[in-house]
């Protein structure tokens, strides 16, 4: 792989990075629509962390170091259920394995960067920032690192603030589901899905892939755990997309 390094023109997309819309601040602004979703889910994660016996400091450390909603729910739940360290870490690994697909799918847009910059971008990658970034790729060939960092850092800080607030106020809120806040996450995925399909200009193929993924994830849920079912459905549905392209 190292040998390939020199063949990639380092400044291939330099002119695009100079556009005003690619700044760090623009990335911050483009993150704003996702903040409410993060806030409510992060708040819920903080509440759950608190109710399963984690200290505010431990909840904060989780958000700082793990920074993944589903994983943090699982750690809190399994700790409360006296799960072993190995079992907890293995479950978190499986739940977050779908990031492999997200990370791979973004890789073509970050060819011009140093390994360190790529690592920083990848380390803050989430479903939501991925969704926003992919919407951005519908508009331009490359995403600037500054814009991506603006998006990622805003989401990260918002997440930490939300989970810490949830852990603080957790003692008064026993059931965040009552207020419909748990629906913020699926609602955000619906929003990201619809805007992607509508902006890519191949609605029929995309709809076919999306519907396949939904059917597949339902079918897979009978035999696989939720997060593994999501990975399997994603891989098969994307492959079906290629198959359909071949037919036409």
């Amino acid at each position: 792989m190292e040998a390939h390094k020199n063949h990639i023109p380092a400044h291939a997309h330099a002119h695009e990075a100079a556009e005003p819309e690619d700044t760090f601040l623009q990335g911050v602004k483009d993150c704003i629509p996702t903040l409410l979703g993060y806030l409510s889910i992060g708040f819920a994660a903080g509440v759950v962390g608190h109710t399963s016996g984690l200290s505010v400091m431990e909840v904060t450390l989780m958000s700082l170091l793990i920074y993944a909603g589903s994983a943090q729910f699982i750690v809190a739940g399994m700790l409360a259920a006296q799960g072993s360290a190995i079992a907890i870490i293995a479950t978190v690994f499986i739940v977050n394995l779908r990031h492999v697909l997200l990370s791979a799918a973004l890789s073509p847009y970050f060819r011009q960067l140093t390994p360190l910059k790529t690592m920083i971008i990848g380390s803050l990658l989430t479903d939501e920032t991925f969704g926003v970034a992919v919407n951005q790729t519908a508009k331009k060939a490359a995403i600037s690192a500054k814009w991506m960092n603006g998006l990622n850092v805003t989401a990260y800080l918002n997440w930490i603030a939300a989970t810490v607030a949830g852990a603080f106020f957790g003692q008064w809120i026993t059931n965040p589901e009552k207020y419909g806040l748990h629906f913020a996450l699926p609602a955000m995925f619906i929003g990201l899905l619809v805007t992607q399909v509508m902006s890519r200009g191949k609605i029929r193929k995309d709809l076919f892939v999306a519907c396949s993924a939904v059917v597949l994830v339902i079918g897979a849920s009978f035999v696989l755990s939720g997060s593994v079912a999501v990975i399997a459905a994603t891989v098969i549905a994307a492959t079906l997309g290629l198959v359909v392209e071949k037919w036409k």
Partner: protein
Amino acid sequence: MEVRGGVLLIIIGAALVTLIPRVVPLMVLSRMNIPDWAMRWLNYIPIAVMAALVGEQLMTADHGLFQNKVELLAALPTFAMAIFTRSLLGTVVVGIVSVMVLRLIL
């Protein structure tokens, strides 16, 4: 405000196994020439993964398939809002309000 040693170890372990899948594909694949078919396959991943996540969260609730009627019904105005406004924030707000209203009605 204490951090227990055992909990800290679990957090660090969980952080590492979360970091690796996030970082490695991006670092490795961004330095390789990806063949055309693989690029087209990766192109479908965003749609596929978002749809799979929506399907998983709406249809496969803890208590059985299609059992969470409130969420499934709330998905309708949420989709409509997304299609007609393409506003992420608006979609999230409509989703949450729909669940709250449906909880009161049903």
